């Protein structure tokens, strides 16, 4: 148990460090745990912004011919909603949980570059606030989250909204790239003794793989945002057809970032499931190597599928077929994961904690989002359904029914570690069922209304047969969903105050973050257990597993 020698003088310094207190300690913090928690809190704030934007849109769409919002307000709301949820909620939330958990899972004292870590967080926060400052400036971005030129060029977007979009996301994006570098160096250099790469906990593995995607994808976005900004402010002509530029070039650049981005938004969530499902099934993951390798396959393929966002552009059949093939291929490693999780549960002793329930709902909802994704990889189907509410349903099944359900699962799982207290399971049940009902009511009907011809990004729509009632169901579902978020926040609040004390390892889990107190001290571990396999804490309880080569990885 005592592989790590604690130097007394070192301990002395660590204790002195603990004495600083208050808000200043948070603002000046370079501690990965505090930064991780600040990420979660900041993204919750943006989540509320994005949620309110969604509810306002759903009021406007609840019935044909509503005049609750003006068209220009609606356009700003859907742009802000998409941009917020993708860049200021899901991506930083996944990074933030990674910042908290990854060093603990590999038995490190912090990230490799703690100050860079803090810089990443503040760049994200102020990038997000800069984007939202546009609201007070008088005009928010209004050209959709993928900002197609030439609608975003000065002649068609005279106000400064789209410039705020460029600058805000550029700021946050630099922080994201820095996070990617930080994760890679952390995992490469700070793993505990004995933790070889093939023993990495899967959440850490997937965060590592994800960081490489971030390094490949984010610069494409940031470079195109600089070009767009130059077009807008200095009259260059990258994307402006009147000066020899090409609007299609923007689409290639953007989706060259945009589709890897979709995987950036889901891979760490898969990592969370790969922690939660084994622990609550009381079994190791089914087929570790396939799960780990399939993630790498997705990372590599993700850079070759962007063209499936552009089937309707008319690039020609051969480019379409190429991107259809790569997009269909990427479904295989995704399917491997779904079946690996089911295989993990098979033969287990499943404990239906709230965390596990969110994970189970993920399996079904994410599969539904996945199969509609395959439909969009089938070029002629895409020719009909792209840019309709069918896409809106698809992407919310993946990003909400998938990623956010996994994040809820992960937060119920790791909240005890972060706060030292358990989240209320009783409130958790309410939260779970209301989320499932609200989510499916909101988005399932959008498949239907999309196939019936309702296009996305319209502030009003004609009263064609059944459109009104389907939209009304969707709007009611959205309010149930909004209410479930309030219940979740209430759960966080009361449980942080009065929740049951968690103890170091409330779930009887196996990875190193559970080998220290909850919450962990600044220096994370007094001593790090020996790592002989993929489940170090299990090995401690089951010394006989020493002999099992499969535990060793």
């Amino acid at each position: 148990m005592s592989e790590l020698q604690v130097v007394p003088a070192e301990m002395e310094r660590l204790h002195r460090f603990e004495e600083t207190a208050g808000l200043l300690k948070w603002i000046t913090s370079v501690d990965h745990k505090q930064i991780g928690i600040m990420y979660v809190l900041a993204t919750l704030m943006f989540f509320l912004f994005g949620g309110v934007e969604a509810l306002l849109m759903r009021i406007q769409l609840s019935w044909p011919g509503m005049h609750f919002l003006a068209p220009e307000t609606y356009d700003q709301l859907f742009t802000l909603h998409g941009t917020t949820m993708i860049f200021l909620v899901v991506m930083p939330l996944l990074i933030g949980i990674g910042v908290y958990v990854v060093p603990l899972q590999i038995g490190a004292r912090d990230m490799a570059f703690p100050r860079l870590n803090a810089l990443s967080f503040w760049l994200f926060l102020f990038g997000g606030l800069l984007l939202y400052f546009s609201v007070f400036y008088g005009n928010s971005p209004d050209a959709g989250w993928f900002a197609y030129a030439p609608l975003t060029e000065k002649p068609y977007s005279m106000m400064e909204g789209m410039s705020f979009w460029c600058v805000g996301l550029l700021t946050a994006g630099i922080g994201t790239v820095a996070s990617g570098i930080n994760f890679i160096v952390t995992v490469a250099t700070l793993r505990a003794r004995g933790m070889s790469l093939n023993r990495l906990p899967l959440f850490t593995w997937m965060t590592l793989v994800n960081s490489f995607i971030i390094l490949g994808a984010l610069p494409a976005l940031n470079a195109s945002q600089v070009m767009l900004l130059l077009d807008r402010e200095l009259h260059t002509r990258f994307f402006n057809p009147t000066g020899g530029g090409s609007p299609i070039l923007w689409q290639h650049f953007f989706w060259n970032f945009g589709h890897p981005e979709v995987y950036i938004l889901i891979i760490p969530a898969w990592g969370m499931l790969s922690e939660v499902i084994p622990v609550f099934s009381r079994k190791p993951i089914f087929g570790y190597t396939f799960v780990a390798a399939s993630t790498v396959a997705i990372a590599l393929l993700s850079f070759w599928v962007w063209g499936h966002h552009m089937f309707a552009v008319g690039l020609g059949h051969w480019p379409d077929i190429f991107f259809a093939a790569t997009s269909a291929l990427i479904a295989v490693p995704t399917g491997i994961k779904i079946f690996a999780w089911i295989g993990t549960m098979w033969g287990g002793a499943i404990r239906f904690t709230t965390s596990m329930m969110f994970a189970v709902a993920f399996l079904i909802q994410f599969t539904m989002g996945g199969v509609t994704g395959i439909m969009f990889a089938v070029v002629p189907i895409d020719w009909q359904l792209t840019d309709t509410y069918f896409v809106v349903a698809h992407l919310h099944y993946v990003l909400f029914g998938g990623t956010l359900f996994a994040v809820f699962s992960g937060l119920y799982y790791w909240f005890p570690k972060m706060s030292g207290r358990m989240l209320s399971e009783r409130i958790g049940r309410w939260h779970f069922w209301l989320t499932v009902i609200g989510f499916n009511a909101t988005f399932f009907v959008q498949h239907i209304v999309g196939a019936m011809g309702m296009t996305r990004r319209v502030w009003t729509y004609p009263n064609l047969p059944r459109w009104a009632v389907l939209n009304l169901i969707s709007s009611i579902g959205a309010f149930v969903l909004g209410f479930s978020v309030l219940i979740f926040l209430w759960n966080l609040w009361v449980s942080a105050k009065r929740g049951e004390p968690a103890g170091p390892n409330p779930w009887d889990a196996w990875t190193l973050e559970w080998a220290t107190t909850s919450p962990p001290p600044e220096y994370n571990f007094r001593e790090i257990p020996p790592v002989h396999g993929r489940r170090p804490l299990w090995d401690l309880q089951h010394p006989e597993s020493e002999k099992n080569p499969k535990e060793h990885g």
Partner: protein
Amino acid sequence: MHPPSVFDPHSAYAWSIYHLTVVVTILMGVVVLIVTGLVTYVCIRFRERKHPGPRLSYGNRKVEILYTALPLMLLASIFGLMIRNMDASDPIQRTRDNIVVVGHQFWWEIRYPGTGIVTANEVHIPAGKPQMFGMEAADVIHDFWVPQLGRKMDMVPGYHRDVWLAANEPGIYLGRCSEYCGKEHAWMRIRVFAQTPANFAQWEADQEKIPPIPTTGDAADGARYFTTMTCANCHTIRGTSAQGEIGPDLTHLASRTTLAAGRLPNDPADLANWIKDPTKYKPGCFMPDLGLTDEQVRDLVAYLETLR
């Protein structure tokens, strides 16, 4: 009128896509059912209360290979179906355009290169005859989508695209702009009138005529206002000095059923309301409130109603 539904195909192209959509939807439904079934079974059979002692297992290489290979085969067969389908849904051989549609913020310019007819927002085609549509854009990206007749096609400024569309039988087919193009994207709707060949020929003959300029009554005053006031800066009426190219061609305005890309029905009362204050009905449109008096509006409407 046929609502713009993917499930209501009226051309060989749309049928072809419809068939593929149904097949793939069924296959995907089966996948969802299998996964849901497995998850449900596992959750019931292996919950802790029923199955307290977990089996220690790290995986099973045969099962792992199986769940890699089976999806791959399923996807490969869908991919095969798709390849066979693509040329039927969107034939690659091209002919000269029958119709060129140009997307504008927020209306459609429709040109018939063969006859020189120019109209707006309402496309007339002969039923049963495949039409080669040319797609262009005047400002930002638009997308022409009438799902009953075939695939959608983006209209990208600086590019020309061609797409085959057809309607098997006469009828009115509703469609709309399908790529977000700005404030009034929602009110950029399309009507396609598929007509019997005889009716279509009649329509063509009517459209080719140049309507006479009225010489008496309110309509005569209206015609004078139109060509001497701001109207002519943006609109064309063939046979007059109004040759503006910003807004829709109004040569045969009264022959159309709707105004402002589907925003209002085309009757004298709505036309008057529209001229008085366009942005009241379509806040993002570029036609301004011209501050006309009620008499001027009455005369203009009287004139425009003669443009059959």
